[in-house]
């Protein structure tokens, strides 16, 4: 609905929008700045904005003292693993619901989504006990499966909305052209849905990366991802602002950068295909 406007109006918009945007992003920008400050300057009063002694010592300290990299690897493995696993299970399901809808398809979708409304804490104990029994506690595989399950409804829903945009004609054409179900999904549906699948993957990596209930409660050391790493800074280390900032920056940077680079797909993904 954009329309041509005068340069003055554009300048005012620009000023306003930038102020709002900087305000919203300020906590992040401030954290990143603080992470480069020496500890005393981080808590200086009044606060120092740019004129401090830039250092990367905090990052080195965090890696040395808290073994950042190990958590990072766990986060990567768990978030990517759970997303891919979810995708493999969700693509056929979404195909079914989008192209062979039944009377109850919508109810089924809503039911799937409603499983996400279950308060996780309500079932923490049973899951915890089951995990102990199965030897899954504090394992990457266990966490991967849990994150896959909690994000599965979202993956299915997103894929479903993307698949529905694909004309059924084209899949039927493939069938007429001699494609079996496997070829139809592999050569026609999936390539056509690549933008949608990409959005789904991105959003779910973010959700998995940031999931902080199960990741904190089901891990101790071996499988602990960055959420657990950062929770370790609750107190009293939280009072070392520079180090806390460095650790925070390290925890959020990978996903922040990925998000920035894939903004377009992500915006599509964020709207869950529900807004055109």
């Amino acid at each position, binding site marked *: 609905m954009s329309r041509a406007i005068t340069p003055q109006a554009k300048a005012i918009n620009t000023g306003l929008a930038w102020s709002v945007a900087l305000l919203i992003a300020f906590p992040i920008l401030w954290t990143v700045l603080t992470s480069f400050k020496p500890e005393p300057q981080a808590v200086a009063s009044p606060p120092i904005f740019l004129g401090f002694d830039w250092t990367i010592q905090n990052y080195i300290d965090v890696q040395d003292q808290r073994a950042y990299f190990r958590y990072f690897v766990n986060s990567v493995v768990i978030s990517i693993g759970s997303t891919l696993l979810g995708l493999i299970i969700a693509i056929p399901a979404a195909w079914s619901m989008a192209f062979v809808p039944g009377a109850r398809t919508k109810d089924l979708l809503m039911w799937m989504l409603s499983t996400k409304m279950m308060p996780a804490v309500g079932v923490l104990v049973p899951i915890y006990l089951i995990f102990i029994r199965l030897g899954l506690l504090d394992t990457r595989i266990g966490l991967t499966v849990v994150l896959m399950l909690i994000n599965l409804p979202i993956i299915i829903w997103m894929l479903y909305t993307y698949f529905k945009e694909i004309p059924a004609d084209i899949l039927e054409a493939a069938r007429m052209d001699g494609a079996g179900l496997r070829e139809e999904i592999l050569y026609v549906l999936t390539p056509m849905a690549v933008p949608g699948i990409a959005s789904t993957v991105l959003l779910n990596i973010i959700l998995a990366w940031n999931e902080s209930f199960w990741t904190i409660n089901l891990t101790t050391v071996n499988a602990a991802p960055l959420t657990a790493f950062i929770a370790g800074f609750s107190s009293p280390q939280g009072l070392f602002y520079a180090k806390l900032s460095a650790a925070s920056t390290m925890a*959020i940077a990978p996903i922040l950068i990925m998000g920035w680079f894939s903004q377009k797909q992500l915006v599509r993904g964020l709207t869950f295909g529900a807004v055109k």
Partner: protein
Amino acid sequence: MSTKSSRLAARLMLSPSVVLLLIWMIVPLVLTLWFSFRRYNLMYPDRQGFNDFGNYTRFVMSSDFGLAVLNTLILVGAVLVITVVLGILIALLIERPMWGQGVVRILVISPFFIMPPVAALIWKNMFFNPTNGLFGEAAKYLGLPPFDFLGQAPLASIILIVSWQWLPFATLILLTALQSLSGEELEAAEMDGAPPVSRFFYIILPHLARSITVVVLIQTIFLLGVFGEILVTTQGGPGSASTTLPYLIFKEISLDKDVGTAAAGGVVAVILANIVAIFLMRAVGKNLDA
């Protein structure tokens, strides 16, 4: 558009998801139900056996229960209102022509990428902290006494943090919807003599209805489970001032080690969540021909 074989294939391909989600839902639920009727306290492993509805009465009758339910509803409701209203305003603002729209958009979405514990820690230490936080500094600069946000207004502080995290989501969805509104519709309204405020209420807002629905639905799902933010900031306190239902259950386990009561709480929470879910699906599901 289907044949018997494609319907069969559809059923086969749907079943793994359905079975997995059923297991994921039912097994813990059944175990929770079982525990909820048992005496099961990690501090007193010798006390066992059935407790009838003892755990339930203990949980529901506890002075914190009503407060926790209320806090949960306030948290969800307040965050929804704040994010939708601000989301619409910001979307209207950044949708207009400007220089550097791409960067503005990146800045605005950024909070969405921040994991809850990080968001909570940043706000808690670097903003809310009355002595070293930026808000404290600002108060000092203005000559005001420092305000202990997490101590004096714990729930509001948490609402602020959570709203900050979800504002980008609401803004983006509403922005996308706004961009799909045809300029002609607005120009027609302008020709008809509608002032900007009427254009907003009669054309823009109805156009956004569906997206607002999506925002409410998705956010509610996530907001009902807000946990990390509370754990890291107030731990439900002071007292129980910022204890939500999920956090109350967590306290039963982590402080009282009372698995039985926590399980009863879990069942109660599941029931309440389902009520909210049904209510929401009814109200909103129709709007979503997803």
